[in-house]
């Protein structure tokens, strides 16, 4: 399958998953937000989060495991950079109250101006970061 077609089909599946969660559970499918509710649990609001994340991890992970070409090999990515990136992503997503899924997929779907501003901001800084790392 052409990667663009796989991207489009996969993207529609992501959008359908977010729509399903809103339709049946009334919840926003923002991965960092759902994860945060497990990290800082509130009574009666944990089990659905664990099941959503378990489904995502097991199903997505199994796909990558079974279809090796879904993941290109990257050798020797610096460990320090990986850890720094992780901390920034975790911190930033909480501060912004959403990440690529919460603001991107769901927020834009609700025509939220706040989410649009968030998406434009993180796209810009991410592109700028890649420019600095790769071309300077």
């Amino acid at each position, binding site marked *: 399958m052409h990667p663009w077609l796989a991207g*489009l089909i996969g993207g529609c599946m992501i959008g359908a998953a977010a729509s399903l969660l809103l339709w*049946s559970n009334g919840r926003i499918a923002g991965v960092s937000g759902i994860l945060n509710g497990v990290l800082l649990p509130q009574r009666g609001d944990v089990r659905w989060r664990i099941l959503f994340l378990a489904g995502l991890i097991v199903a997505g992970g199994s796909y*990558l495991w079974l279809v090796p070409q879904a993941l290109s090999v990257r050798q020797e990515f610096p460990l320090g950079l990986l850890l720094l990136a992780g901390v920034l992503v*975790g911190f930033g997503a909480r501060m912004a109250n959403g990440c690529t899924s919460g603001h991107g997929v769901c927020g834009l779907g609700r025509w939220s101006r706040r989410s649009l501003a968030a998406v434009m901001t993180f796209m810009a800084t991410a592109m700028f970061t890649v420019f600095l790392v790769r071309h300077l």
Partner: protein
Amino acid sequence: MNAGHASIYFSLSAAAAGILFGLGLALSGMADPQRVLGFLDVFGSFDPTLIFVLGGAVGVTALAFPIVLRGQQPLLAERFDLPIESTADKQVLIGSAIFGIGWGLAGYCPGPALVGLGAWTTETLYFVPAMLVGALIHRAIMRR
């Protein structure tokens, strides 16, 4: 919490949504950090695949969400649990800027990182704990 949360169906539909979301991330190429960085590399070897991913995802939600929200309540809960709509505040913009730097450094955002963890990739075994630490640091600062 409301009775809906006790329902087994509430949990099962969350699991189904998670499965579909995870498969979508894996199939789309979004879980491949090299492809993500290729998309972000607009001044270099630009890879447009992610436009199709985001276009497909937002295309579906932009059509489905308004229809879903026209209903009085969700199928299995008493009410829709939505963030309060507001204009973009400083927190959202600064947080997003920080998030984007991290995303651009390694090519992982939270969903794809968790999918990678499911495949037990070496990188995500480091990235995901670091991401949780970042969330906890934010929590610790907020508590002060």
